[in-house]
């Protein structure tokens, strides 16, 4: 492959791009060609950024979504930014120039890079100030589907994200005839700082699917008794997603549902779809009616193939899917918002301009007692009227700093990694669950963990404040400390009613349901409400960000640092 990228943006081309847009050109001219409205398929021959020296320019750009001009913070002038197509074993230098009047940064999500190259201002490096250029340099130790995005402010919510594909150094065990990168995202006309402020100002402000008296009279949703019980506990079962389709447009490769991004195939081809959920706050349910989806990789790591009809993808997760559309027809790719408040939509077709039926949104799910960590199905006794007392017992998690930021403490959290995610329990077809995932390759570390650590995911939905073990990061919690090379079993317990996709930088979590040696490795794990997830991790030296990948939860305080030091150096 070529050593130089065939798209080498310098300041002049960037400025020309802005000028063209200002002159009224459509977004199509500014999209990278792999994401143009009719994509021919992302192959190495296509214009992407490749090679050992890459230049990226972060700036303000007006982009068009469904014909409406909107503000974006972009990488090289497009949303998403350019696909980086790299090769395992390569050493890459990436110069990032910031043309904003505020700091920016790029984090290489899922890449095992040296800690000082990880891109989190205040943890890994000082950030990139306006007008400055920072040169990242690191070797590529892995292959697969990843992505990169800002770790500054709320820039990620307005377009500062892009995909990465790293080809394996040797033959790819996943063979396909063509592939498409599918970047899912959400976009709001409302400035992200205003979105956050609204969430703080009024609980459930964007939820327009609440239970109503009209619904009660129509026999919908909860029974009167259930409504009363939930109201007594000040819990809203319709609070599935903080930010909804009421203020969001859901994007596939930068395109709204009506833009209808289209990926081409020839009937009979084996097509690899590389899904990345780059959304700030939305979890998606993904399906392609008429096609089976064979999951071959999760978070960039190959897994033993699993055939499903649908999968839920949390923020920052990636899944590689193989499909084999045999018929000469179009298929709709549906990325339905988890709260069913909207969908991202694209088309896979043999020829441009074709469409297929778009299925209607399914009914929005309701949270259940299980989502409060109170699954009573296995407990004939105990379901009673003292529940509110038990719902916040500090004895169940002594490490939690109690206070107004801790709304509840799950009294009976259960491992929900065998569940498909909120609202998909009765989808009527096979939905991927974490326990389906088994690593294809052998794990690099198969030791048993030397100790265990439980971390509670805490928050208060009414105050829209979020944290770990009761701490917002701004309150200066003690960092989680580890010895370099030690293997630790971490259990995350979700003490909130929202799903949290938790991401650890610089590491892979290894989920425990699979045979030793083939634990699936993930950089981001969805922890369902009232649920818990355990995984083993081998600590890598350095300081690493650990946070919820829902941007507004992170911005509300759900962020921490894992500090890992050599065992002999004072960390005993």
């Amino acid at each position: 492959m070529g050593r130089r990228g065939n798209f080498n943006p310098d300041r002049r081309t960037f400025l020309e791009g802005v000028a063209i847009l200002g002159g009224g050109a459509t977004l199509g001219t500014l999209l990278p060609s792999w994401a143009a409205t009719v994509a021919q398929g992302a192959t190495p021959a296509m214009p992407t950024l490749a090679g050992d020296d890459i230049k990226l320019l972060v700036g303000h750009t007006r982009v068009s979504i469904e014909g409406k001009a909107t503000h974006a913070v972009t990488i090289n002038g497009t949303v998403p930014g350019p696909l980086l197509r790299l090769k395992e074993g390569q050493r890459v230098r990436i110069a990032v120039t910031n043309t904003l009047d505020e700091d920016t940064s790029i984090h290489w999500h899922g890449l095992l890079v040296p800690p000082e190259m990880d891109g989190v201002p205040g943890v890994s490096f000082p950030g990139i100030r306006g007008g400055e250029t920072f040169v990242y340099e690191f070797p590529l130790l892995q292959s697969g589907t990843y992505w990169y995005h800002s770790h500054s402010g709320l820039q990620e919510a307005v377009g500062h994200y892009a995909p990465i594909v790293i080809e394996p150094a040797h033959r790819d065990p996943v063979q396909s005839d063509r592939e498409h990168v599918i970047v899912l995202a959400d976009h709001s006309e409302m400035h992200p700082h205003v979105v956050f402020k609204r969430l703080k100002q009024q609980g459930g402000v964007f939820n327009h699917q609440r239970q109503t008296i009209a619904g009660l009279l129509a026999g919908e949703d909860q029974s009167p008794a259930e409504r009363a019980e939930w109201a007594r506990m000040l819990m809203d079962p319709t609070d599935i997603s903080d930010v909804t389709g009421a203020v969001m447009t859901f994007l596939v490769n930068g395109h709204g549902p009506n833009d209808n991004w289209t990926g081409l195939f020839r009937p009979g081809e084996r097509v690899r779809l590389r899904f990345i959920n780059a959304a700030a706050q939305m979890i998606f349910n993904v399906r392609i009616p008429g096609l089976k989806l064979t999951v071959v990789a999760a978070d960039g790591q190959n897994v033993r193939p699993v055939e499903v009809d649908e999968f839920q993808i949390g923020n920052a997760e990636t899944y590689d899917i193989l499909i084999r559309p045999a018929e000469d027809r179009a298929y709709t790719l549906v990325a339905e918002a988890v709260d069913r408040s909207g969908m991202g939509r694209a088309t896979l077709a043999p020829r441009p301009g074709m469409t297929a039926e778009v299925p209607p949104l399914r009914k929005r799910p309701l949270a259940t007692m299980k989502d409060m960590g109170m699954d009573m199905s296995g407990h004939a006794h105990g379901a009673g009227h003292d529940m509110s007392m038990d719902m916040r017992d500090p004895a169940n998690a002594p490490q939690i700093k109690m206070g107004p930021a801790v709304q509840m403490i799950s009294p009976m959290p259960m491992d929900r990694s065998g569940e498909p995610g909120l609202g998909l329990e009765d989808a009527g077809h096979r939905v991927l669950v974490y326990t389906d995932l088994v690593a294809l390759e052998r794990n690099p570390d198969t030791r048993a963990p030397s100790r265990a650590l439980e971390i509670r995911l805490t928050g208060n939905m009414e105050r829209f404040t979020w944290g770990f073990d009761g701490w917002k990061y701004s309150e200066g919690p003690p960092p989680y400390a580890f010895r370099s090379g030690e293997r630790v079993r971490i259990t995350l317990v979700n003490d909130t009613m929202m799903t949290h996709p938790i991401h650890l930088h610089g590491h892979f979590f290894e989920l425990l349901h699979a045979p030793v040696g083939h634990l699936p490795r993930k950089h981001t794990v969805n922890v369902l409400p009232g649920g818990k997830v355990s995984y083993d991790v081998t600590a890598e030296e350095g300081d690493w960000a650990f946070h919820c990948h829902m941007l507004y939860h992170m911005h509300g305080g759900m962020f921490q640092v894992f500090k890992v030091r050599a065992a002999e150096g004072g960390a005993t």
Partner: protein
Amino acid sequence: MKRMIFLALLTGLPPMPVVAQDPHAGHVMPPPKPPAEETGTGAAQPVGNAPPPASIVDSAVDQIYGTTPMDRARGILAEEHGGRPVSKVMANILEYADADGGSGYRWDLEAWYGGDIHRFVFKTEGEGVGSDGATIAETQALYSRAVGRYTDVQAGLRYDLEPEGRAYATVSVESLLPYWFEVEAAAFLSDRGDAFGRLEASHDLRFTQRLILQPRVELELAAQDVPESSIGSGFSSAELGLRLRYDVRREFAPYVGVNFEWLLGQTAEFARAAGADDEEASFVMGLRAWF
């Protein structure tokens, strides 16, 4: 079947690629051990009880980038992860009122600024008759502290502009009670040594996603007779409002409604003695808005 074919493709796997040897990489991968306990799951592996390491306070990258730029970035990091103050300005009541005794207007506004725990709160409420100046105008400046999941305690000063200039020390509690009742209880001690109390409660009845009926009650009480203000000790007045609003947006909701007010006890006696009504019903229309 397809899956079988696919699995067959996987059999020709190359050996695990040897990753680039790079001293800069920083990723120390322990060498893989030969397969031993492949039968069990990861969950079945025993977990040791090694003690956690001592707390770590130093930064791993300060020596590379320098402490000064890192300190600046750490300040931004903390602010962007839970430390950003927020504000809200809300007109809960901003209305025209039509009663037998004539028309008038009324407001009840609140603004706050601060973090999750500590906030500065400004409140004002009052009313007027016709298009004249206000007959009642009250302001409060308070420090607010979150003390519970749903409860804030506030303390500060109240100053009345009308009917006469008067200052009070104020303590109040705002809370969200089970079944989604918003309540506020306040105590006031005036610069003349008189003590008063106020209780407010409201609830949103959601007919549809946007059509919402808000019943609201307010009780005023006094610890002593204050004849010059025509207030008697005990409960002095009660109010019930029913406001039906339409959320054009959550932050912009016009409403119509009715409001009933009763003077109670000795206060009612004072009113009757002065030839005034001791109860009033009014039709209201107004705006509930916030930003």
